[in-house]
Every structure is written in structure tokens, then in C-alpha cells.
């Protein structure tokens, strides 16, 4: 042990527990001397039995309803009123009497009694002192997107999700409460059923299995995750069976997706040829005969590589169980072809969740998930000329895909790659197997002390990728590779991450006082290993591995690489909470973490939090305020860490093997830093929850302020050391903001119901300090800057002030306001806004009329300025050998021309605001119209329920940004980006 503290704590706790144990034995004897039995049945509005409804007295559970909805609980005879509570329904009070109490619960999803899962615990919303957003599982159901993180877009306040690629299966960038790290990761921690899963590779996970998603944001909820929770935590639970009749459900869906038009229009054949001729025919020096022949060709390159995408999504689930055992089984098939040819995602998945009660005290269970996916992709978001999505923008319209004389791929006059060739001669695919499985044992240790329980859970998140890329000998990459005869690459990677959590929990109620304490131990270990092989010379008939011709060219030695890294985390932590009268809530947590990633000097660290909540509306003085139903104030403060995003051995001095003339020797690849340690995010949150007008309006407002300290930053070194920088813990960045969540029931009549759910977030990011070697200007990286007092990733450009009508030169505005034709990169750059959207949110309107329901969901971001490098590449004369934007037709040609495109011979200046655009957009993310069969009809045809729906995804986007898709994860459009799929599907759900 490096530190004795955790030990001491446990010893101390043991003493306390033992003392408590004796006390409980004594009190329970006195408390439960006289008892009375209460019985009855609980149903929903349609008289269907509800099982699992909790019957409690003063917040303490006494039992749950059985599968048929009946209950029988033994309560102290002093009890007057019991509370019945159930997820998704309003609480109901019953008076203790001798007759059976049959109760109908009414739905009310705004209830503060709703249970939220925080990973290690389940809490009633009322008890939460921090900030948690829960995402309705309905929002994930049947959404035709391969990677579930994208489905969370606009669904939760404080969470900004932006996908950089619309490619089926591509993951998004998920930011919770702003960017809090520069060199470290900004991805949240993902926990599925208590097991840490990779913050990527979601394409093999079936989101229809999810029961709930909670987004933990503040300190009181994330500090318990210690060194991993700084960027927030996304806690997912999968569905569980309920005892009762076995339910079978089928979900099926079919749809089509289309590729959008680009608002940044390019020239057609005549425009391009005229442009070239007007500029002196310098690019190709065409003869007039050639020009005439080329005018007859006008190729639509986009049509040649795009297609109508097809989505098929099918799933069968079965759930049910006996009183002792419950199960949930699902099998899913998701098959989506993209809107670009040779792209798509195919996923097969299987889940089995099983829970078994061994005795009144012991429960065991297993959650087993296996998903397999086949991801075929193309490359995007880069400036590579061989990327088909770039090449279709750059290929001249007067070129053909196939040479009509030879029948082979046309070689372009420009020498640029033919996109049709690279679309058809390149295969990229990843097959992924993902297994997430865990088993738990929990035991009530009532024989030691009432309220004491033990739980241990061990699980693994296993991923195996099989990446295959083949570049035929005709492809651009294949011809540029070693031996120039194509290459075949196969890589396999496996990641195995174990999570083991063991805990003791103790709850105790004394009168109006309720205590909970827990002691935990956790161990996380991840091993990543990889192997790759690249063979050259695909001169055989087959363009896969069998086509590799050994020894062809003599120099085509296959490239082979292997690697393995490992990291581990060991933690001890405790949580405690206290509530009084179910009205005042206090909680706290302390976690001590040790990580293998850090230097010997700083391997262990402690994180902690405190939180408090006050149910103001329960106070007597509040009873007179009639229109407000509930009012709750909560606040929390604490410290959370971040350790992801740096290498597993980032603190060590490393020598890598370097080769020269086939001799392999050591060369330093990384300087040591024994002081490297966690980034720490200090989080403060204060929130107010209010519902009024008979719960028809519920408003939640949170204010947060989070400061990340000890940022991982590259402290600049003198290059004379041979290195540019050292990853060091210096610098601070702050995120502050407001989050609003509004749920309203606008109209509620017998046949028609209209509800609205909206959320809005304002996040302000500011750099507080940077490395000591940072010059006052800040750290400039390309077209962005990090400067103290400004947000991270601020645009740093020279202001473009148009074109001088007299000579066609660029005009720039200097910081002092004067106009100049001289481009002074060093002195004249200024900050122009930030790339990370400061304002974002979503709004869902739901309309229900009789058996029809319609839901309309928009999400939006605004306030960000994005750099359009993709436009820059088609708005410059010197790339005129390729196709250009039609705006280039407005190029300055003669004195007096008023335009914003400079003369052809002016030097292109890219780091100017000429290419900076408003990145705001609003998108109709989802539109669903559905019809539900009436119970009567359903019964008549022998099923329990059925629903038919038509769903539109991304049908409309409003933006000024000039690209296929304004959704960018880093605020820069590097090159052509695969746009989000615009999909229309039809489907049905049938339950038996």
C-alpha cells in the first residue's frame, strides 16, 4: 500500500458498522413489536396489473407488488398512511385499514419520485442533490442510427453532441458542460450496467436494449467516479425482465436515405472551361478543338459515388419471469447501407439478462451482451486527394469516369485521382465483436444488521476489431504504395477491460432521519493489443490477401507491427447520505484512486464531493402557495479527475526501436515526467426545480461553474533538446453556464394531448492560465489560438476586408482598424469567436390524438464560428487545375470590378476570415407519426398491442454554413465530410 489512508478508513468503518449493528438489533426489536398486514392490488388506468410497485412508509420500503399486481405487506400498527410508488406514475397514498386496498395509479412522468440510476446507486429524483439528465428510452427506440451516442443529440441539457461524420456507425463527439481538457480526453465516462465501456465503438451496441440513460454532470454525482468522472458520466442500464406473463415484442423498420445537395456549388463544364480560358488557359493549354470536345461532357461526379441508402432494423425481445427469476432476451439485426457507395453498417446483437433470487437475502444475476458488426467505410474529413468525397468535388466536370476508347478508368488531364476509380478499387472495412458481460451477487446482511447489504460485481468489456483495407493495383493509394502494385492491410486489435466493484452498504432510518453509507473497492484493468500486416503487390487475380504475390518487385517486404499497452486503476471510496423528513438531503463521497498511468511521484489522488438538497415545497410555510406543486433547491461542490487521453505510459522515459540498414537500435521517443498526474475538475452546481399549475409546467434551472486545474498541456521546450514539448500538469480552464429544462403539458383533453419538452444550455468557456512558456499572444495552432481570457479553440485569423476594385488585391483590416493590402500574419491576426458552440439545445413537441401520435424533435446549436477549409480548397486560383466553386466566376479581372474574389495572381491567404462562417444550425432531427391499435382491436386479433409508424430523420436543416452538413465536431471543416443520413423509415411494433 502506498498510502495507509484507505485502510484506516475501513477499520474505522468496521468499528462503526459493528456498533451500528448492535444498535439496530436493539431498535428493530422495539420498533416491530406490533404489526398489521395491509393487502390489495395495484393497476394502471387500463386496469392492467402493475408489478414491482413499491409500498413504503416514511420513505422506507416494506414490499413490492407481485406479478398480478397484488401486495401484502406487514407494517407497524402505528402506521397510518402508506405510499405506493412506481416509475412513470405519480405516487399515491393509502390509508392503513382492514379492507383490501385496490388502487389505480395514474401516469405522471414528471414525478420527483422517479428513480434515477447513478451507476453505483439508484436514487429517487427527490434525493438527488446534483445535476442529472435522464434520457427517455423512447427517444432511442427505433432511431435509424448505428451509433447510439448520436441519438442523444439535443436530448439532455448541458450535453453537446456533434457527429463529424454521417457515415453509418460513426461515433460523435460528446461534450458535457464544455471542453475541460486540452491534451486529455473530453469524452465522458460510459458505464453500462456497472461496467466501464469504451467511450467509442458504439456501433456494435444495440440501443434498443437500453432501459435508461442518465447523464451525470455535477460533482455530487460524478465525484464517486473519482479520476474518471471529470467529463461527466453516462450511465446506461439495460432492460430487465419483470415477473409475470412473458411478453414478446417485435420491432421492424425499413427505410431509405438520400445524399443531400451541397450549398457550395461548383462549376459545370462550360463555366470551368470558360474560367480556364479567361485566365489565359494556363492550366492545360487546351487547343480550341479540345475545348470543343470537352464541352460535350458534363459529368455529375456526386451521382457516380452516391446511392440511396437502405435501412433494415429488426428486433425481437422476450421478457418475463417467475417470482424468483426474471429474464430479458433480445435479438437484433440492424443493416444500414450508407448514401455513399461501399459504406454501411451491419450489426447482429444478442442479449440475455437474468436475475435470480436465491433466498430472501441473496440475489444473483448476469448480464450478457454480444454484438457483431461489419462496418464498411470511406475516408472523409481530410484533405487527401484520393478520398472519393474530396475527389468528386475536385474532379473537373469535363472529365469522364471511364475512358470510352479503352474502357478503363479515365486518367485526368490534371493528374488528380479519378474518384470513380478510388471508390471502386478501395475496400475499407472493420469487423467488430463486442462482448459486455457481468455477473453480480448481492446479499442483504440482515442477520448482521438490518439495512446492511453486500454486493460484488465483476464484468468485462471485450472488443475485438478486424480491420481490412485493400487497395488494388489500380487505386491511387495502391499505385503510390511500396512496389506500386497495390496493398492489402489487415489489422487486429483486442481490448479487454475488467471492472470489479465490491461494496458494503448500510441504510438506517430512525424516525425522520435516514442514513445511508457505503464502502467500495473497485479495480479496473485494460489491456490493448494490436497486430497488423500489410502485404504489397496485389498482382494476382484476386484483390484480397490471396492476391499478394510474394517477392514481386523484390522489395515488397510485408510490413508487420505488433503492440500492447496496459493500464490499471485501483480505488477505494465511500459514500454517505443523510436525509431528514425526506425534505432535507445531504450527501458526500470520498474516493482515493491510484493509476498506472502516472509518475511515481503522483500516482495516487483523492477526490471528494458534498451535496445538499432542500424540498422547499414540503415546508409548512409553503403549503399556502397553491399554484406551485413542488420546489426543490439543490447544490453540490466537489473535485473530479481526468486521466484518459494520454498514453498508458505517458509518464515514463521510453526508447523505441529505430531501424537503419536493417539494424534495429534504441532511440528515445518520449521524455520522462515523474510528476505527471490527474487533471482535476472542481465542480460547483446549484439547481432549482419547480413544477406548478398542477404539474403541467415543470422547470429545471441549473447553474454550474467548473474549473479544470492541472490541465495536461504541452509545456514548450527549447527544440535544442530534440523535443518540442513535455506533457505537464499546468494551466486552468473554466466552464460556466446555465441549463434549462422545461416540460409542459400544453393541452390535455380526452382525445388530444400536446406536450413539449425543451432544453437549452449556455456554456461559457474561458482559459484561466496556460504554461509558463506560453507567450502573451497564446498558443497558435493553425487557424486557432489558446489565449488566457478567451475560450479554448478560438479562431485566430486576419480580418478579410474584401478586394480592392482597382487592382484585385486582397484587403485586410488590421487590429487598429486601418485597411491594408499587406498580409501580416504575425501582427494582424485577431480572435474571432470560438469553434465550440456556446448555445445549444433541443425541443420535442408531442401531439396525441386518439390513437395517433406525432412527435417533432428539433435540435440546434448557435454562436459558433466554423472555419470552412473545404471551401478554401475550391476558392483559389492556384488549384484551378481542379474544379472550383462557382463563386470563382466573380474573380477580379479588371479595374473597377467589385467582388470579394481577388485577382487570379494574388497570393492565396488562408488564415483570414474569408473562410470563417457562422456554424449555427437548427435541424429537424426526428419526426415520427404513429398509429396505435386500440386495446380492443388488438385483443380481437390476438395480440396485446401494435404500433405503426413513419419516421423521418434529419429531414430539414437550417444553416448558413456552406457544406453538405453543418454539424462539425471540432469547428473546422477540413475537407469533404460524409453528411448525416436523411432517412425516412416505416415500421411497426407488435407485442404479444
Amino acid at each position: 500500500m502506498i498510502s495507509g489512508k484507505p485502510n484506516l478508513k475501513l477499520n474505522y468503518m468496521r468499528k462503526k458498522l459493528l456498533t451500528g449493528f448492535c444498535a439496530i438489533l436493539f431498535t428493530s426489536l422495539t420498533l416491530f413489536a406490533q404489526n398489521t398486514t395491509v393487502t390489495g392490488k395495484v393497476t394502471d388506468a387500463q386496469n392492467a396489473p402493475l408489478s414491482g410497485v413499491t409500498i413504503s412508509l416514511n420513505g422506507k420500503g416494506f414490499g413490492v407488488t407481485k406479478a398480478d399486481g397484488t401486495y401484502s405487506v406487514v407494517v407497524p400498527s402505528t402506521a397510518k398512511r402508506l405510499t405506493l410508488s412506481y416509475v412513470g406514475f405519480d405516487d399515491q397514498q393509502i390509508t392503513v385499514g382492514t379492507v383490501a386496498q385496490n388502487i389505480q395509479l395514474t401516469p405522471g412522468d414528471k414525478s420527483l419520485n422517479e428513480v434515477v440510476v447513478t451507476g453505483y446507486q439508484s436514487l429517487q429524483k427527490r434525493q438527488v442533490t446534483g445535476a442529472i439528465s435522464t434520457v427517455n428510452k423512447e427517444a432511442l427506440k427505433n432511431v435509424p442510427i448505428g451509433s447510439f451516442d448520436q441519438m442523444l443529440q439535443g436530448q439532455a441539457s448541458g450535453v453537446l453532441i456533434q457527429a463529424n461524420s454521417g457515415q453509418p456507425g460513426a461515433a460523435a463527439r460528446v461534450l458535457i458542460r464544455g471542453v475541460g481538457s486540452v491534451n486529455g480526453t473530453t469524452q465522458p465516462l460510459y458505464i453500462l450496467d456497472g461496467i466501464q465501456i469504451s467511450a467509442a465503438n458504439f456501433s456494435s451496441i444495440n440501443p434498443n436494449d437500453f432501459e435508461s440513460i442518465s447523464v451525470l454532470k455535477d460533482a455530487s454525482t460524478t465525484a464517486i467516479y473519482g479520476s474518471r468522472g471529470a467529463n461527466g458520466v453516462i450511465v446506461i442500464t439495460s432492460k430487465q425482465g419483470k415477473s409475470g406473463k412473458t411478453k414478446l415484442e417485435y420491432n421492424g423498420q425499413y427505410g431509405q436515405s438520400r445524399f443531400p445537395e451541397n450549398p457550395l456549388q461548383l462549376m459545370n463544364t462550360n463555366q470551368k472551361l470558360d474560367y480556364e480560358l479567361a485566365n489565359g488557359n494556363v492550366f492545360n493549354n487546351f487547343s480550341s478543338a479540345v475545348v470543343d470536345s470537352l464541352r460535350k461532357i458534363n459529368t455529375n461526379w456526386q451521382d457516380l459515388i452516391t446511392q440511396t441508402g437502405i435501412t433494415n432494423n429488426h428486433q425481437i425481445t422476450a421478457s418475463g419471469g417467475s417470482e424468483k427469476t426474471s429474464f430479458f432476451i433480445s435479438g437484433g439485426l440492424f443493416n444500414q447501407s450508407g448514401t455513399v457507395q461501399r459504406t454501411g453498417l451491419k450489426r447482429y446483437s444478442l442479449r440475455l439478462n437474468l436475475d435470480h433470487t436465491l433466498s430472501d437475502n441473496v440475489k444473483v444475476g448476469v448480464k450478457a451482451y454480444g454484438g457483431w458488426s461489419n462496418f464498411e467505410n470511406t475516408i472523409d474529413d481530410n484533405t487527401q486527394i484520393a478520398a472519393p468525397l474530396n475527389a468528386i468535388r475536385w474532379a473537373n466536370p469535363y472529365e469522364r469516369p471511364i475512358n470510352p476508347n479503352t474502357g478503363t478508368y479515365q486518367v485526368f488531364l490534371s493528374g488528380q485521382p479519378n474518384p470513380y476509380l478510388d471508390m471502386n478499387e478501395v475496400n475499407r472495412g472493420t469487423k467488430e465483436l463486442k462482448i459486455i458481460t457481468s455477473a453480480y451477487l448481492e446479499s442483504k446482511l440482515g442477520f448482521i444488521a438490518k439495512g446492511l447489504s453486500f454486493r460484488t460485481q465483476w464484468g468485462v468489456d471485450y472488443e475485438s476489431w478486424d480491420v481490412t483495407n485493400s487497395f488494388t493495383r489500380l487505386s491511387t493509394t495502391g499505385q503510390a504504395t511500396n512496389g506500386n502494385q497495390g496493398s492489402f492491410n489487415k489489422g487486429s486489435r483486442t481490448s479487454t477491460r475488467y471492472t470489479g466493484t465490491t461494496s458494503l452498504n448500510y441504510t438506517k432510518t430512525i424516525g425522520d432521519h435516514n442514513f445511508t453509507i457505503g464502502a467500495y473497492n473497485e479495480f479496473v484493468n485494460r489491456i490493448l493489443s494490436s497486430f497488423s500486416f500489410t502485404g504489397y503487390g496485389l498482382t494476382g487475380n484476386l484483390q484480397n490477401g490471396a492476391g499478394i504475390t510474394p517477392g514481386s518487385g523484390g522489395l515488397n517486404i510485408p510490413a508487420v507491427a505488433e503492440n500492447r499497452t496496459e493500464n490499471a486503476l485501483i480505488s477505494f471510496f465511500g459514500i454517505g447520505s443523510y436525509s431528514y423528513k425526506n425534505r432535507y438531503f445531504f450527501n458526500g463521497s470520498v474516493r482515493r484512486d491510484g493509476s498506472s498511468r502516472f509518475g511515481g511521484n503522483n500516482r495516487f489522488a483523492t477526490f471528494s464531493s458534498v451535496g445538499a438538497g432542500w424540498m422547499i415545497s414540503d415546508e409548512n410555510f409553503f403549503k399556502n402557495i397553491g399554484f406551485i406543486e413542488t420546489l426543490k433547491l439543490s447544490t453540490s461542490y466537489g473535485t473530479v479527475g481526468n486521466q484518459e487521453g494520454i498514453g498508458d505510459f505517458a509518464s515514463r522515459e521510453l526508447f523505441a526501436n529505430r531501424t537503419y540498414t536493417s539494424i534495429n537500435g534504441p532511440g528515445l521517443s518520449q521524455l520522462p515526467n515523474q510528476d505527471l498526474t490527474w487533471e482535476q475538475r472542481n465542480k460547483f452546481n446549484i439547481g432549482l426545480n419547480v413544477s406548478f399549475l398542477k404539474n403541467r409546467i415543470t422547470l429545471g434551472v441549473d447553474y454550474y461553474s467548473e474549473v479544470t486545474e492541472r490541465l495536461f498541456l504541452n509545456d514548450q521546450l527549447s527544440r535544442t533538446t530534440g523535443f518540442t514539448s513535455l506533457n505537464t500538469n499546468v494551466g486552468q480552464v473554466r466552464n460556466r453556464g446555465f441549463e434549462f429544462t422545461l416540460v409542459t403539458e400544453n393541452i390535455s383533453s380526452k382525445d388530444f394531448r400536446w406536450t413539449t419538452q425543451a432544453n437549452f444550455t449556455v456554456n461559457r468557456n474561458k482559459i484561466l492560465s496556460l504554461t509558463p512558456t506560453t507567450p502573451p499572444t497564446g498558443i497558435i495552432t493553425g487557424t486557432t489560438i489558446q489565449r488566457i481570457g478567451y475560450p479554448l479553440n478560438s479562431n485566430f485569423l486576419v480580418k478579410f476586408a474584401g478586394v480592392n476594385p482597382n487592382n484585385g488585391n486582397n484587403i485586410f483590416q488590421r487590429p487598429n482598424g486601418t485597411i491594408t493590402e499587406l498580409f501580416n500574419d504575425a501582427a494582424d491576426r485577431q480572435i474571432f469567436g470560438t469553434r465550440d458552440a456556446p448555445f445549444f439545445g433541443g425541443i420535442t413537441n408531442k401531439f396525441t390524438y386518439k390513437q395517433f401520435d406525432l412527435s417533432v424533435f428539433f435540435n440546434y446549436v448557435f454562436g459558433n464560428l466554423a472555419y470552412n477549409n473545404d471551401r478554401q480548397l475550391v476558392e483559389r486560383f492556384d488549384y484551378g487545375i481542379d474544379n472550383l466553386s462557382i463563386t470563382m466566376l466573380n474573380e477580379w479581372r479588371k479595374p473597377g470590378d467589385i467582388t470579394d474574389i481577388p485577382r487570379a495572381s494574388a497570393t492565396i491567404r488562408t488564415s483570414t476570415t474569408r473562410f470563417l462562417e457562422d456554424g449555427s444550425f437548427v435541424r429537424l432531427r426526428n419526426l415520427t407519426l404513429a398509429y396505435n391499435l386500440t386495446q380492443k382491436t388488438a385483443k380481437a386479433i390476438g395480440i396485446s398491442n401494435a404500433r405503426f409508424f413513419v419516421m423521418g430523420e434529419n429531414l430539414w436543416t437550417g444553416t448558413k454554413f456552406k457544406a453538405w452538413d453543418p454539424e462539425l465536431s471540432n469547428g473546422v471543416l477540413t475537407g469533404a465530410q460524409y453528411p448525416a443520413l436523411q432517412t425516412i423509415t416505416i415500421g411497426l411494433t407488435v407485442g404479444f
Partner: protein
Amino acid sequence: MKKTFFKYILSSILIIGAVGCEKAVDKSPTHALSQENAFKSIGDFETSLSAVYNSLRGAGYYGRNQSIIPDMLAENLVQTSESLVNFAELTDWAYTTTNGTIAETWLAGWGIIFNANVIINNIDKFANASNQTRVNKIKGQAIALRAMAHFDLLKYFADNLDRNSTSAAIPYVKQSALESSPASFKPARLTVTQVYDEIYADIAIARTALSNVNSPINTATSKYRIDITALNAIQARVALYAKDWATANTASTAVINALPLATRAVFPSIWRDLSQTEVAFAVFFSPGEFLSRLAGDVYSPTTGTNRSQFDGNPTFFSQIDEANDIRFSTSVTRGFTTTAVVRPLTRLVVTKYNGKGTALDGVVDWKAFRTGEMYLIRAEARQNTSQEALALADLNTLRAARINGFIAGTETGAALTTAIQLERSKELFMEGHRWFDLKRTSRNINRGAIVAPTTQSILVPTRREWVWPIPQGERDANPNMTQNPGY
């Protein structure tokens, strides 16, 4: 029993903790080395030379910036419309302190020096009486490489390259960052004279070491390392820039005597890596080991690219006898193409680095030092020390070796000076010399009429661009580093 159960649970948590804790989070890399296990014997230092030679191949050094950029900066290449204009800021002489290629060049030099210092400063711990000649062999190469890398940085970043110049130059780094705190390592610039003093001293130490080695370093067909002949070549070039004519004369003579000029018949095969005649030091490139297209930013012959971004300048090549001078056809090929793209015969495509043997992949050794250059160094040295006849003789020997039916020239005085410089540009086309030859002699460039996408034609001697700026990143981290004039 209950108490036992409870104890069991609690102790199991503690056991997990006690056993785990320190050990559980102590993970060591399995696919990388630490200093302790990287250097365990003298052999590890010998193989570690690979790290130094390997870093010569990066784009910041012979992979591009010290090999073809000097020609792109000058006038014997012309940028074509096929250019991706990735180096416009350099080739239009519009660079500032933030130029990425300049920063890359700066860093690459120090990376080589760093790796060399790891060897130089630690090898003596493993030296004893019996392995001294082996230590000499390893340490001699490392010190020679350290001197060479400093010299190559000096050429770009110092203004006046004369031996007695007091212009600000570069630091001379003999310590590796591992021996001090990297964050506090902030050396200041020495004067050009001081840097020369250090280079001369290192070359002297390397000479002693490389003169007494346990086994030959290079063979006739493998000139991939620095041996005593390569060291002489380095010294000859250093002395030429320093205008230390006496040393230039003796050092180049040593190379000339060791490695006679290639014949006209053999000369083309040098550029195809089929012969290493007259090569003193070549840097090994191969598709299997280090796939880098040396001249890819000028002309890349692979069928996937076939892009000629810079052609040979027709005005310059009109001075080379196309029919008889072997250097025309080894440098450029009229209208060369590897795909259906047609280039007119007026286009002089640079085919000097097309590949090994018959390969057309652009992967070929970098001939860093060879005898042709040594003749020209000696000619210049002799002319500057009033040995004009000998200078002319050297020039004629070289021309006779390259030009079929060459009739000996008779230049004297200024004409001879001009002839030597012209011959340098012909002989050393695309070998990393042109910019520096202009810098150390006339500081004048005239590219003639401007042809798009190039926007600049004339660089006069007073322009600041003759010396590269110290990169901004260095100045931010190291306040002791002063900037060059004009930036």
C-alpha cells in the same frame, strides 16, 4: 457464524486492496524500452546509431528540407501548374517566424544531435581497454554526425557563414535532455565563429576515433555510414563554407584520392543505386525499411501520383550539352510521364530520383557526399589560394568525366570563378546545394519571367530571407534565443 461471515467479506475487500494497490497499478511497457534496459552493453550503443542515421531520413532533414528544398528555393527549378503549392511560402520567399517547414527543419537537426549525444555521453561507462577500437568506431560516427547536423543548421539559420563571422548562429549542444531538466534547458546562440570552433573540434575528435577502429565501417557497395573518408568529405564542405581554403584543399584531396570519379558509363547507375562509385556517404532509403519519396515534392513518378510540381528550368538546362553531357539525362527527362498524362517535350521532368534499378517509386538513396563535389571544392579552394592552373585542372577533370568529347577549358580569373560555380550547379543539381551556393557567393536570384503559381522572381542580396528566422516556438520556450535580423 454471522460474525465470521461478516469478517470474511470485509477481509476480502482488504485483501483485494492490500494485494492490489501498489502492484495493481504498477504496469510496465512491454513494447518499448526504458533507459536501463535500452543500454545494457556496448552493442546497444552500436545499434543505437541506427536511431541517429534513421533520423537523417525525416522530412525535416534529408527526407526533404536539407535535400530538395535548397533547389526549390533557388532558380534552377520552375514550379508548374501541377504543383500543390504546399511550399509557396518558402519558394515565394514569404516566410515568417511561424513557417512550419522551417520549424520542422530546426527540430530535425536537434533531434539528430540529441540521439547522437545519448551515445556520446553514455558509451564511456561501458568502455574498457579491450573494446576501445569498437568504442572509437561508434563514438566517432556519433560525433561526426553531431558536427554535420550542427553545420547543416548553421547554413540555414546564420546570416554570414564566414569562418570569422560574428553573426548570431546556433547553440552547440553537447548535452542530452536526459542529463538535465528538459524544461530548464535554454541555450543561447553562439557566434558563427564559435560554432565553427566546435564543429572543427568535433571533427578532430571524430578523426582520431575513426582512424583507429576495430573493423571497416563501409564497404565498396555500402556507404551508408560515416567513415574516415566521409568525415573528410564533411570537413571539406565545412571548410568551403568557412573559406578555410587550406583545409578544404587537404580534406577534399583525401576524398578524391580514396574515391576516384565515376566514368560517364557508370555515372547514371549511381542515381539508380546500382553503383556507389565516388559516393562517400549515402543515406539509405528503401521501400521496405523507410518508404519516403525523396524528391516527391518535385517529381513523384509513381503511377498513383505522376506529379511534376517542379520542372528543371529550361533556361538553366540550355547551358548543359544535352547530347554529350551525361548530367542532362541523369537530371531530367523531356516530357517524362508514367501514366497516360501527356507532358510536352519542352517540360524537363526531374527524373534524378526516380527509384532504385528500374523501379519508378521515387524511393532512392540520398547521395550526401561524393567525389564530384570534392573536385569542385578543391577547384574553388585552389583558385582562392592562387593556384589557378590546378583549379582549372580540377574543373577540366570533372568536365571530361561527364561530357563526351570534352575539349579542355581555358578559363582564368573571373571567368574561372563563374565556370566553377556554373559547374557546381550542373554537377550538384537537386543535391541540396544551390540555395547555399548562392547564399555564400552572390546572394542573387533571378528566375526570369514569373510563371504561375510562383509569384516571385528576384531575390536581392539585401533581403532578410537569405537567412531563415529562428522558429517562433523556439523563441517562446527559450527566451535566450535571439531572432535573426529583419524578422
